[in-house]
């Protein structure tokens, strides 16, 4: 269970989040929507400790994450697929995956097992396992980024705008993968997105982040969600 309570955070003197509160039940899949600059990425980064929360609390499984180092937060089962994808471009697909397990002194067999698992989910990566990550297409890089996060068998997975820059066909594949993840009961998913239309089929509900706070909690049809978003964008 992820509980975010009155979280404040920002950069330097700028306060981007001014009291964000919401929670996500275990196994649920939610969307975090909002316009540019609303603070979605800031929130994701704050959960992962890349940005220090200045106020409020973030609790995962009852334990407060605030003040913990990012690598420790990751080790406690929280993974973020950042907007920048977080790949090591000079390393191959396989090396990227192995590195993402490196912190856990898993035996070689365990590592191989997990990599095989991930390749089953992303066959395109399997065929390119020796290619440097820099040579992958945008969609494949996104897959690799998600694979890296999954290889740690996280219990909370946050994806920051995975759809950006991807072609429709790739978006379909990506959606299929995320749906598959959703079916795993132990995995809680937070999908941070601007593209509501694409995201809606993958989430149970949506939170709209506006001006540093959660402005609205949306359920229902995709039209409901889009209208809510349009209202907040001011273009509806």
């Amino acid at each position: 269970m992820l509980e975010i309570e009155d979280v404040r955070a920002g950069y330097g003197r700028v306060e981007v989040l001014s009291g964000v509160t919401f929670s996500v039940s275990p196994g649920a899949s939610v969307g975090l929507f909002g316009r540019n600059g609303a603070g979605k990425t800031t929130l994701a980064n704050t959960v992962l400790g890349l940005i220090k929360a200045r106020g409020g609390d973030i609790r995962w499984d009852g334990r407060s994450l605030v003040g913990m180092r990012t690598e420790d937060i990751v080790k406690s089962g929280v993974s973020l697929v950042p907007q920048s994808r977080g790949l090591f471009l000079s390393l191959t697909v396989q090396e990227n995956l192995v590195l993402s397990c490196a912190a856990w002194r898993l035996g070689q067999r365990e590592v191989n097992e997990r990599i095989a698992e991930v390749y089953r989910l992303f066959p395109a990566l399997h065929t390119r396992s020796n290619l440097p990550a820099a040579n992958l297409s945008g969609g494949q890089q996104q897959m690799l980024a998600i694979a890296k996060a999954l290889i740690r068998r996280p219990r909370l997975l946050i994806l920051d705008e995975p759809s950006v820059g991807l072609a429709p066909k790739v978006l379909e594949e990506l959606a299929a993968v995320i749906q598959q993840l959703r079916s795993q009961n132990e995995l809680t998913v937070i999908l941070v997105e601007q593209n509501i239309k694409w995201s809606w089929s993958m989430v149970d509900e949506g939170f709209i982040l506006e001006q540093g706070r959660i402005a609205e909690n949306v359920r229902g049809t995709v039209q409901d969600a889009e209208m809510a978003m349009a209202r907040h964008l001011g273009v509806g």
Partner: protein
Amino acid sequence: MLAIAISGLASGAIYGLLAVGVVLIYRSTKLVNFAQGEVLMLAAYVYWLTEQRFDRLWGVVPVIVVGVILGGLFFVVTHYLIRSTDDLTVVVATLGISLMMINFAQFTWGGTARRVPGWLTGDENVRVGDGVVSMNSLVLIAIAVLATVALDQWFKRTVLGQAVRAAAESPESAALSGLSVRRMRAISWVIGCAFAALSGLLLAPEINVYPHMAGTILFSGFVAAAIGGFGNILGALVGGLFIGLMEGLSTVVVDAELARLVPFALLLAVLLFRPTGLFSGRALRSV
């Protein structure tokens, strides 16, 4: 002539080893360690002390250990104690440490130069062309090349090496991958200083051990690093070898005094013609 070239390459190998350490530490922490030469010096003293009591072949163990310990100490001081975000301040702190190290050696062991035999080779010399070189200098060059290539491969092929590289290139992505950036930096400091220590072990037989032995060697190391583009350890080694070779040849072609200026001349050349270094593809950021 060949002998001069080899002896030049030997000096160059030392510059290269120092440069490798400097580059490694810089890439990982964005800090320039001005006390790298003093690590070399203290390691040389440790070798001398060991060699007096035990078989000199064992000397490598305490030498590397000293390098590791010093690396750890530097990490602790620069990472935890100095709270300044200003690089210049941290650099000056390493300068303070280097002064302490030199003086420590001075009052502990005195200023007399101590002779030590070559680590693997003792005092043997060998005829080369129409000159003579010490076996140690040949060993020196070989070990420097081997060690650097080994390190380069370690970075490219092992998981830990890749992890250190990754943490240096993108600390955030590394943290998100579950890597401890702190630990990676500590490892870089330790390896960097271990290389400096190794160079102390290899250099000591050539110029003897005394507190100021590092002198201007570190500067040549910086120039070697610049030639390598400050990012590439193989480039740094090649840069060092090149500087050494040029220095050696200059003593024959021109004169010894002028030869001391070779590193500076090469530096100017690099800055004027290839500021990004000969090997790195990295762009030079201007203010």
